[in-house]
């Protein structure tokens, strides 16, 4: 076996996994703070990327467009809290999950209705070309993406650890009622969390958009992030990163080595279900994922 080739596949997979993690982080933020499984994260990624690219194409300078989209995503977070979540306080989780599917349809419809449904190319100044690193060729764009992801995690970590709002978020994540009793406003915290998830969606949208073009298929990034999520655990940002790395690497390795070596040519199209199977097998051993909170059940 060609070791160099193996490393190339492995590193390519790891870096692709980072892209999955970016979407998964958005899920984790919301799930941790409000217990809502936000299926609309993919739609938010699409919405953010499409809004940004449409503004840029209308001649806005990129920083202004970026600021505008960020503003829109934050406003969206507050609007979602007010209109969607507040009437549904104390409803079962499945109801909240369903409502986010409705939200996903809504956002997809609005984004395409306002900006049109054609595919846009997005240029963020980094080319998707490989360069040689110790004999292994690595995509420059992938490195940039993982750098951005690292920065994003750093920013989120500082936000959660050092700011007052961040600490309020963590308090709510730990225990809703205890947080309420020390005077933290739940509705404010939820709005902030959704806005933060909107910000993550924007970053993910720009990177994914630059790679694949801004198109409707961006909403399916959510489906890529789900196995990452259950593998890493719903409540953990490190879990989302590690889960993304594992899924990305094994997916690529399986496609290259299992897919082609059996000789059945079954490799194509495997990437749709393989991560799920992998995560599923893993869950049989650890039902709460790698870094998820262990459930303690009492009667």
């Amino acid at each position, binding site marked *: 076996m060609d070791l160099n080739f193996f490393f190339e596949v492995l590193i390519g997979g790891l870096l692709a996994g980072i892209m999955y993690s970016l979407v998964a982080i958005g899920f984790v933020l919301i799930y941790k703070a409000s217990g809502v499984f936000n299926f609309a994260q993919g739609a938010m990624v699409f919405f953010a990327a499409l809004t940004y690219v449409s503004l840029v194409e209308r001649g806005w300078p990129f920083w202004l467009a970026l600021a505008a989209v960020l503003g829109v995503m934050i406003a969206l977070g507050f609007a979602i809290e007010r209109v969607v979540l507040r009437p549904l306080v104390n*409803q079962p989780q*499945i109801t909240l999950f369903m409502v986010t599917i*409705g939200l996903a349809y809504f956002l997809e419809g609005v984004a*395409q209705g306002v900006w049109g449904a054609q595919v846009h190319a997005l240029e963020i100044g980094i080319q998707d070309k490989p360069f040689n690193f110790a004999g292994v060729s690595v995509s420059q764009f992938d490195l940039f993406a993982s750098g951005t992801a690292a920065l994003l995690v750093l920013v989120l970590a500082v936000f959660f650890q050092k700011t007052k709002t961040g600490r309020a978020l963590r308090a709510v994540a730990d225990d809703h009622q205890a947080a309420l009793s020390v005077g933290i406003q739940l509705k404010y915290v939820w709005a902030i969390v959704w806005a933060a998830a909107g910000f993550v969606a924007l970053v993910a949208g720009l990177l994914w958009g630059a790679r694949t073009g801004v198109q409707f298929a961006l909403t399916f990034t959510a489906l890529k992030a789900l196995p990452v999520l259950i593998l890493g655990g719903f409540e953990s940002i490190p879990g989302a990163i590690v889960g993304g790395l594992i899924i990305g690497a094994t997916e690529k390795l399986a496609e290259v080595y299992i897919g082609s070596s059996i000789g059945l040519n079954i490799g194509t199209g495997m990437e749709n279900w393989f991560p799920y199977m992998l995560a599923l097998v893993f*869950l*049989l051993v650890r039902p709460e994922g790698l870094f998820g909170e262990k459930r303690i059940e009492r009667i």
Partner: protein
Amino acid sequence: MFYRLAGQFKSSYAADQQIFPIRQDRTFIAGVLIVAFGVIPLVANDYWLGAILIPFLILALAALGLNILTGYTGQLSLGTAGFMAVGAFAAFNFMLRVPGMPFLVAIALAGVTAALIGVVFGLPSVRIKGFYLAVATLAAQFFIEWVLTKFGWFSNYNPSGVISAQAIEIAGYRFDTAVSKYLLTLGIVAAMALAAKNLARTQTGRYWMAVRDMDLAAEVTGIDIVRTKLVAFAVSSFYCGVAGALWAYAYLGAVEPQAFTLDRSFQVLFMIIIGGVGTVLGAFLGAAFIVLLPIALNVGAHAFFPGVSTDLMSNLELVIFGGLIIFFLAVEPHGLARLWQIGKEKLRLWPFPH
């Protein structure tokens, strides 16, 4: 006043345990069945039968299946369409490969095949719960879709993976008109709905609800939860499998695996949420709502804004559909079946204040 129970005395155990203990309910169900079997075939045209009523009935059956799993047993599943696909392709292959296979047997075997696959993909539910399980059922959805597309054997090596349903023939009678297909579908759906209603009152049904309400407590009281969950997966997948087979045979005639994508799973999930989780009636109300809504939107849009572009229309449909779901869940999280319940309470008193 119209829904009063006064004067209805039960004088035997059989009367006390009958499936519809209230006379008005019996009259209502009988009325619905008479209209569905007797009146609709006479008055409805082929468009209504073929394009609205048949898909409505089939999707209601699938929703019933999902309701058994999600509503009664509390295991959230996103793999409904996958099990429907298993049913459709299994029925096709039984009809194709077994000479002289009777149609109804093929449908039943399709259901059994789906049930077996359902049990396999239900195995993780022994260990994992909640959203972890929901995501795990997506594995079933994507894996089944991939297998059916990838291996030509399942579609008899049709180059585009499409299966064309054979003609339906039962005891020498060919079901080739819309009316006959409607009656066939209605018969199967009505029988299975009654079975589901009954099943919920059996020991198995009570076990399901116990597991839903609190699985740990159920286990402590001696319920075998592994068995209970797997039975729920099997029965639910059986219903979905039959629905899928009917989708191919009674509705479309020719289907490909892409007819059973994740969107279809969500559609069925919407039906039980909007209709009412954990009720048989809810599956039908939800299916009616979800089938009729896009049609009503389309007709409405063309009536009020003539010449609206299809592009804008499809986006508008998404927005309105999403918006309605949000609105609906905010206003009545327990679904249409709950509204029905409230309506009956009101009828009990009306027109008197108490």
